[in-house]
């Protein structure tokens, strides 16, 4: 798990341990590049997150990791930073692992979107079999807290969507070995632990 000073790393570590994993928290570039699985957590602003990664020399190691077929998971801000650009406090370059951008949520009565919400398959991903969402049902809710949302350019990169007060946005992205979820699996009770468990079992593409 990438430690770059942003977010609730302790909670994600505890959730992974509850799933039976023995995670390592690190900000060492070589450990990041050579991990067997990589999680990029994160809570906070896009620009700050990218700056913290840059300051620690972690951008290249994350790219190096992503080029392998080993499983990668971005959570919340960690997912948003997988996109090419973010628009929080001006346009900022992201990691660019997925083409597309991150924009402010507009329309719903209350922002941030805070709370439990169901996720649904995107038009291109009608089946979650063999993905980190395997076994997740249409009644299962997960916990969101965000004011920004990711828009991948390729519909095939969208695994799941979500509807908040009439506003439809991308809740899970997937491109080969790369996954990202907008919600917090580590705060989504048994459903979230199931998703993390699936990630721990995931192979390559």
């Amino acid at each position, binding site marked *: 798990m990438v430690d770059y000073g942003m977010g609730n790393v302790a*909670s994600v570590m*505890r*959730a992974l341990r509850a799933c039976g994993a023995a995670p390592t928290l690190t900000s060492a570039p070589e450990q990041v590049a050579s991990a067997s699985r990589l999680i990029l957590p994160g*809570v906070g602003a896009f620009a700050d997150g990218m700056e913290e990664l840059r300051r620690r020399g972690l951008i290249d190691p994350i790219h190096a990791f992503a080029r392998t077929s080993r499983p990668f998971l971005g959570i919340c801000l960690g997912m948003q930073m997988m996109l090419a650009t973010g628009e929080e406090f001006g346009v900022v370059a992201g990691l660019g692992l997925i083409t597309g951008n991150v924009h402010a949520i507009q329309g719903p009565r*209350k922002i941030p979107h*805070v709370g439990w919400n169901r996720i649904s398959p995107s038009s291109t991903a009608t089946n979650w079999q063999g993905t980190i969402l395997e076994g997740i049902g249409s009644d299962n809710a997960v*916990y969101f807290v965000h004011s920004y949302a990711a828009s991948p350019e390729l519909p095939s990169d969208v695994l799941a969507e979500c509807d908040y007060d009439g506003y439809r946005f991308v809740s899970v992205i997937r491109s080969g070995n790369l996954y990202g979820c907008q919600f917090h699996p580590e705060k989504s*009770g048994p459903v*979230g632990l199931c998703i993390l468990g699936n990630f721990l079992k995931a192979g390559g593409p």
Partner: protein
Amino acid sequence: MPNIRLIARLDVKGPNLIKSIRLEGVRVIGDPGEHARAYYQQGADELLYVDAVASLYQRNSLKEIVRRTSEDVFVPMTVAGGIRRVADVEELLRAGADKVAINTAAVRRPALITEVARRFGSQCMVLSIEAKSTGAGHWKAHMDSGREPTGLEVLEWARRAVDLGAGEILLTSVDREGTGSGFDCELVRHVASSVSVPVIASGGMGSLAHLREVVETGKADAVAFAGVLHYNRLSLEQIRTCALDAGLCVRTHAA
């Protein structure tokens, strides 16, 4: 319509889970961690820990309780009481909290709201308001667990805090807290319909009818309750089932 969040509120004094009436006159209930775990397993959407005496004694003793709770509780936790500096927030987040709710220190120095929001994001900065009615349609904010008047008009203060970066408002009616006589729905609507961030209604839940009223009339985005759970008057499962039967949007809990 978005799901309404059902939040189990745990007021703590020293090592004990307590319950007060109008934030005064404390009764010891038991071990906070045990109750927190039980409420998680029964399907609470979030937990809210409040150190009831922290602001008075200028310390928050919840860090260790939060750390232990987060070992096996995997829903969001908000921590309130005695948080005065960015460093206090950092410690609590590191212990396992996801958000902090701040009242007294934000009244004394509103810039703290902006500092916390900048550093950890608005979603982490919950403004806690303890409101007392001062006549029809008027409420004043209090601090130090409802003891000290601040002179601030509740809605004015809420709007200002949102401008400063608060991402959510925990709105406790001191008049109703611990009475089980129902939420101050007028107060909740007064704030919830006028600010752009979610409002958590707290204080007064005694029956399922009260829940329905504060959601439908009060327009609450989330509802916090303590006594009904602590005294086994209602279970989270009952609350959730009845909310669904009444047509309220709440998540269906996967056991």
